[in-house]
């Protein structure tokens, strides 16, 4: 039976522990769970928040397409992707990816792949709010992110 990924785009926070529990409870075939949580950093005190803009509809659609690629590529028993949008203060969660599998390498690779593709393909953009007041610039995409994503092709 093919796995259906859980994909959410939301303003509310998520509970990584509870989401992990949903992928394992009542099952005896899950041997490995790899969870990635991305959090907002204050960049040495210079940022008061990140504002995450997204493309409603396409964000969910693209995350689902990436999740389905991961499911086609690795033997997963479950996959969860949650991405927040709106204004997020330092220390708060931004994104959660959890990959469950019978085998550890599949879970690690699927979560790693998902984050690399999410970074370069999911339509979200970060704008900085500065600690000294005012709005800073849009965060630039990193060349390193493209290189990370290219590892999987």
């Amino acid at each position: 039976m093919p796995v259906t990924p859980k994909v959410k785009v939301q303003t509310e926070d998520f509970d990584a522990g509870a989401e992990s529990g949903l992928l394992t409870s009542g099952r005896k075939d899950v041997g490995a769970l790899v969870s990635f949580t991305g959090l907002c950093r204050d960049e040495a005190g210079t940022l008061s928040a990140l504002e995450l803009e997204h493309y409603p509809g396409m964000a969910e659609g693209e995350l689902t397409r990436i999740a389905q690629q991961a499911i086609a590529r690795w033997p997963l028993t479950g996959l969860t992707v949650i991405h927040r949008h709106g204004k997020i203060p330092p220390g708060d969660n931004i994104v959660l990816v959890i990959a469950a599998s019978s085998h550890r390498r599949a879970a690690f690779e699927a979560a790693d792949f998902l984050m690399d593709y999410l970074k370069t393909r999911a339509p979200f953009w970060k704008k900085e709010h500065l600690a000294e007041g005012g709005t800073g610039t849009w965060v630039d995409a990193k060349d390193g992110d493209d290189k990370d994503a290219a590892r999987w092709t």
Partner: protein
Amino acid sequence: MNIRYFAWVREKVGIEEETIELPSNVKTVSDLIAHLKDLDDYHASAFEEEDAIRVALDQEHVEPDTELGAAREVAFFPPMTGG
């Protein structure tokens, strides 16, 4: 056709969304960008660094040479920085 802008492309154009009639010579995404650049200074400024602009057609990533076909919505935005 419905056109949407995000992030700094949106800020430069000055609007989130607009609907335009496509001239008959606009076949591809590139043609559309050329057409939009001619509309006014705001559009011209938004598309100045054309290589930095990403495009989605009906909410899927496409390349600039893609034909617009029967698409209902096109979106322009900078490289993604989520995650």
